[in-house]
């Protein structure tokens, strides 16, 4: 939700898949400046959780690993602006999927 006093938005982030083990929690609520994007959210998460998070989530600067999915209010960001997707009152799901293997 956006508050007039601070012009911030509160984003509930839900971690699924491997990330629960990396982050050590199932979800958290983060406060970001109004107008923040998914990329800004990830920058904040990178600051909070450091190298273990960065190395698992990004293949290189600005590029998510192919096994990381991000949904904002149920919508895959791949189809909605990618890391540039603006965040309003949102629930963000960050899912680190297992590989579909074989052999």
């Amino acid at each position: 939700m956006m508050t007039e006093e601070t012009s911030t938005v509160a984003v509930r982030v839900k971690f699924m898949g491997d990330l629960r083990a990396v982050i050590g929690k199932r979800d958290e609520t983060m406060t970001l400046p109004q107008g923040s994007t998914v990329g800004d959210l990830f920058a904040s998460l990178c600051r909070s959780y450091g190298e273990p998070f960065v190395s698992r989530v990004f293949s290189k600067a600005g590029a998510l690993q192919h096994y990381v999915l991000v949904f904002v209010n149920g919508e895959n960001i791949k189809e909605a602006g990618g890391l540039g997707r603006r965040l309003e009152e949102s629930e963000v799901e960050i899912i680190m999927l297992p590989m579909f293997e074989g052999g």
Partner: protein
Amino acid sequence: MESNWVLTSCGMCYVGCGIRVRVDDGVVTGIEGDPNHPQNRGKMCAKGKAGFMNLYNPHRLKTPLKRTNPKKGLHEDPKWQEISWDEALSTITERLGAIREDPKKLYVQAWEVIGDNFYWLLALGSAFGTPHLMGNASATCGKVIHPVEFFSGGGFHQQPDLHYCKYLVLVGTQFAIAARGAFNHILLDMAEARARGMKLVVVDPVGGFAASKADEWVPIRPGTDSAFALGMLHVLLNEAEIYDKKFLQHRTNAPYLVGPQGRYLRDPGSGKPMIYDTADRSAKIFDDPAVKEPALTGSYDFEGLKARPAFALLREHVSRYSPEKVEEITTVPAKTLRRVAREFGEAVSIGATMMIDGVELPSRPACVDWAKGPQGHKHGFHQSWALKLINIVTGAVNVPGGILSTAAAGKKPFLWWPDGGTDGLLEDGGHILPLPHPKAFPGRTPTRPIRMDLAELFPLAPHFHTLLPITSEDPGRWGLDYRIEVMLHAPTNSLLGSFGDLKKVERFYQTIPFIFGFAIEINETNLFDDIVLPFPTYLERYDFVAGTGLLIPHCGKDDWFWQVRQPAVAPPEGIRYPQEVIMEIAARLGILDDFYRLINHAFRMKEPYALEAGRRYSVTEVIDRMARCWFGEDRGLPWFQENGLVRIPRDVEEAYIGPFIDARLPVYLEHFLQRGEELKEVTDKMGLEWDFSDYVPLPEWLPCPAYDAVKHDGFDLIAVHFKFPYVYGSYGNDNPWIDELCENTGAYGVLIHSDVAKAKGIADGDEVWLESPVEKVRAKAKVTQCIHPQVVGIGGHFGHWAPGMPIAQGKGVNFNALLPTEMERIDKISTALDHCVEVRVYK
């Protein structure tokens, strides 16, 4: 008497052939191949025909059990006690609930690839939050083929195009003769290709089924496949100068300029790799539209740096593998290798084209195929990758007659297609399910592990479970401060099939306080279970994913398909559908909505078909939603129950994707250098000694431990494993008809070369001791000329002792039990456990 025929899908291995099941008064009395099914075109194998003996196995588990003997071991009697489903699921929920805040303590073995449970179990583990999800079964198989194929072909697996191939070299695989996906389809293609005159050369330590059908069997010393491949490359590139220049120039990274440190020369502004255009003698960015004639040879100065095209480095590199040098390594005579390479080079017909359905395509009617054999070595990645390079340098990839990538692309019911990415190279393989696929490019960033399987230290690997018996012995050595506390497994037999040294696996399983899983019959893995849940056979199940038609269908222009498995008969009272059990566990844990989220994504479930949060579904409701979502409102589960399958025609672009992919293939693995350097930083910080010899951009032959051990440690033979078509995947080991086949064909014996047997005083049928560094077993000798004289051949997946498998008990040898399981025997790229082991054989 009421009789009817039910259309469904076989489940006696992972292929999933279409079958018609005859049911008389509720009893299955016969199984036939479905002639309308593209996967097998009405044909069946012996295993499939014997399938209903599994259904009526008197030793089947039909009610949940709990162990009452707390002591666990290979030969400990669990002292089972029958319990209710509610007690079983309550106990499971309680034990999972206890690790809820630290979910990585759960380990899920999801491999049950004949049906839905494969992904459903992965999704359950993922919703729970553990990274320890094992979506594979073997300690070797699949560990290289998938990551290689996704970055050098575009799909999940590979298949020679038997429709047009004229010269096929099989290395360490019995493709289309005794093994592989779409088995009953490609068997016919192989027969037709052989009748048409295709030459078949089999390179294998074992003169098995494939060799017996071949024009030529080339026995090779185990673990030397890369040397053979590099020798072939040398003959092709340097002696005969046969390579597909245009393909290499424009469809691979062969022209990328490589600087002194082995890295691409990159454009300072864009960071993109550079090439040298001989048309105007200037360096350009690789994707500059003005590029005309990228150089493949030579040496160039670029702002003070000397650089050479990757292809020039490859040619120079392979020049160290002359056939004479390769003979010393492989025992393959130099003249044989040279002849095979030259025959291959002539057959591949560089520059030829052909028309299919009005579309002109390159024609490359020769290829090399490999599968399990080359992967199963300490240096398994490069053993295999060198073989794939033969196809790439001759342009025989995804074109008629060459090697084809399975399930790489399709247009119905969705569009899926491989795509380029980093440095213009193939990066995103095609996959009908929008799930991350195993690929060795560009890899992941190594970091300090939190995973018990050390996945973080294997940034190019897709599978990691071979590490678990090693790390579980001393987690602290790897910086880990916890242990696996709960294991959930599919109804397979990981104890015998997924690792090596049984005593080490026994110790690993003994460290896990709570193990639960499924079973059709109580096998050796179940002997470690705390709770066992009964599982229906494939003749009693519903599955939206029925077999591996979505990953390894037959290639070429024959129709693709989708089949939904339905029960021929109802499961016995007391057996529940596994999908409903999984949903029940998720619901009890409070993660059902998360589970739905993952299933909806994996199966592209959109409104109004997507599973809705807060609702409960039966398995038939879920499958009906999936079927209607994919194939239309009128093609739900009832339609599939009546019609069996949807046939989906493939056009030329789907069948031969090579010319239609907007991406280059690699011949030079520059990123291996980067990942190796990153990994070294991590291992140095952790104080670990690590072998980086495989982190090189061009493949090198390096010896397996067994290669040297037979020279120095008192062992004189190397044991290898091979497959039988009638025990493929071990689904029929306790099936009396399969047992009879095995008995009558001597499948339970171990192959010893007649010269070796004579020298050791061993006669055919003698009982002998077979001893590896970690196991000593009795075996029956099968004396033959059809094996490399330095090798002992062990087939199938035998060596059972579980009381629940009385037919299989005491028959044959469990090959994996012979394999030392230590870091020194693990491929540092793929995590494959070395599957050749030094042994001695004596009476």
